[in-house]
């Protein structure tokens, strides 16, 4: 096969692109064409096999088994259970959607201010950039360990409580109480803002400085530059960040490593205040309820799809340059 490729591509590359309609083909040309197709196809074959075996087939199997109960078809049994009997459902979906809606914009805005600072034109700025980005590359379990400890109570020597206490602000409950867990988890997002900082920095890099010079000549101040140049020119990246951010946040499993098994459900947090869909799916899986877990996964899929669809439908504010009006 390799020899064929050798011969054929050599001949065909030397020729300029041929007109599409060719009335008759010699057997040799036919063979050359087939080999060319085969070469392209074989190069892509690994990933085509991969998406069928590891994506499409399991997804279809999950869909089928979500309509089953005890290995028998019982159409909407699992979905009915989910929405009429399972007491966790609304809490779990509510928590996940709330977390996504708050944490993603919060991370974007924070990343923006961080990028402003990381864009100062001073010596050694790349070292600062690196330090601000460092928390992003710390593995989840390691940062989970640290934050579990840091948000701990005074009795557990929690660092934040020590600091707050020293400032005379008393002891805070953080992950230990139902009403403060979600806020604490979102606050933890501060330390991963380096990820969106980098994306903002690359956005800044891609904005032609001519625009700012022109604006300065017209007497624009910093705020006007931000709202009329930086933000409009960065909309494709903001959009990209929103889409990937929501998809990731809706599948968030961080509570597994920050609250672990300390409350009713594993990874559920105090009063299930941090109980997210992906974590619930894992728990149902661990109880052996594969079919129910699959149904939950499909509802999550639908939620992710809905978010993406809404983002794309409302994406008229994204500016891709003059040519693609």
């Amino acid at each position, binding site marked *: 096969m390799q020899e064929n490729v050798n011969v054929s591509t*050599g001949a065909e590359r030397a020729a300029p692109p041929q007109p599409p309609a060719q009335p008759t083909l010699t057997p040799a040309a036919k063979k050359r064409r087939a080999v060319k197709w085969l070469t392209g*196809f074989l190069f892509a074959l690994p990933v085509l096999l991969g*998406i069928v075996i590891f994506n499409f087939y399991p997804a279809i199997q999950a869909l089928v088994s979500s309509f089953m109960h005890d290995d028998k078809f019982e159409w909407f049994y699992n979905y009915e259970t989910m929405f009429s009997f399972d007491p966790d459902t609304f809490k779990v979906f509510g928590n996940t959607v709330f977390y996504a809606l708050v944490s993603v914009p919060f991370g974007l805005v924070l990343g923006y201010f961080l990028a402003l600072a990381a864009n100062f034109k001073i010596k050694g700025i790349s070292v600062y950039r690196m330090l601000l980005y*460092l928390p992003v590359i710390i593995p989840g379990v390691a940062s989970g360990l640290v934050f579990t*400890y840091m948000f701990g109570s005074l009795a557990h020597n929690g660092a934040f409580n020590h600091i707050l206490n020293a400032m005379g602000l008393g002891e805070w409950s953080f992950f230990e109480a139902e009403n403060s867990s979600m806020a604490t988890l979102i606050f933890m997002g501060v330390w991963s803002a380096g990820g969106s900082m980098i994306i903002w920095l*690359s956005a800044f890099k891609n904005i032609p400085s001519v625009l700012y010079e022109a604006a300065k000549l017209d007497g624009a101040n910093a705020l006007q530059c931000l709202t009329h140049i930086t933000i409009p020119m960065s909309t494709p990246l903001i959009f990209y960040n929103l889409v990937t951010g929501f998809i990731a946040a809706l599948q968030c*499993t961080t509570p597994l490593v920050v609250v672990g098994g300390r409350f009713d459900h594993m990874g559920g947090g105090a009063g299930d205040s941090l109980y997210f869909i992906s974590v619930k799916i894992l728990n149902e899986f661990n109880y052996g309820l594969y079919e129910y877990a699959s149904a939950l996964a499909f509802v999550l899929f639908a939620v992710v799809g809905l978010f993406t669809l809404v983002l794309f439908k409302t994406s008229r504010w994204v500016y891709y340059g003059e040519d693609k009006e």
Partner: protein
Amino acid sequence: MTRSLSPQERNRSARRQRHVIEALQYTCLTVLAIIFLFPFLLMVGQSFMPEIDFQRGLLFPIHFTLRGYEQLFAQPNYLNYFLNTVFIVVFNVVAMPLAASFCAYSFARLKWKGRELCFAMVLSTLMIPGVVTQIPLYLLFSSLGWTNTPLPLTIPNLFGGGAINIFLFRQFMHGIPYELEEASTIDGANVFQRYFFITLPLCKPILLFVAVGAFTSSWGDYFQPMFYYTDPEKYTLAVAIYKVVMLDGVSENSVAMAAGVFMSVLPALVFFLLQRKLIDGIMVGAVKG
């Protein structure tokens, strides 16, 4: 300002103003850096902290001990966990960039009917949340007898190495001038030679980016391995920390912190060594993505 300044004076005051602004910028960045590093400095500090200091409510140790590390590595299977993880990481760091670039070469450089449709199908898999396929995959791999082995975490990466990576490679290859390949074709290079000797070496920035991505994701992943590892002798490091340290709990704080440090040292090292190239790569990836 009522009094007019001499040019010299004006110059000096402008320079002073610039100095003040620069000092403010450094202060601002330093404060930010301290806030961002504080948790991890604490982790390192407390991994050397004896239990007495911890119980006295200190944040940073005043005594120094290696007990945390000793106890951590005294766990019977810790070396196994490490070796398991290293095997998975090394395999993926090599396999993912190679597989992704190989398939991307087809989508970027070879012309064949159905190419665009296939590429769209590859991208469509990005929409499927990981948990949807997780359970059927678990059933598939356990029927193959692959649980408690590194196979479920490595073998699938031979098949394309991730849709987003293929996308990044394809974008990057579009930016490489085609003339080089044409010249080598005339010199008689076949398609494999063109891929391996011409295109691949030119993809270095994105190769590095994908390889480091493969490293950090397979080194730190606990969610996927958790499905496949049930035997406490065979865990990966991340699963071991999650199950042994976090769920079961350890007696001393320094052991937990030592586990966290051990987990973070390698990614931090890789990051420090490749810092400049990596941040550029992330920017390339971000813009292209």
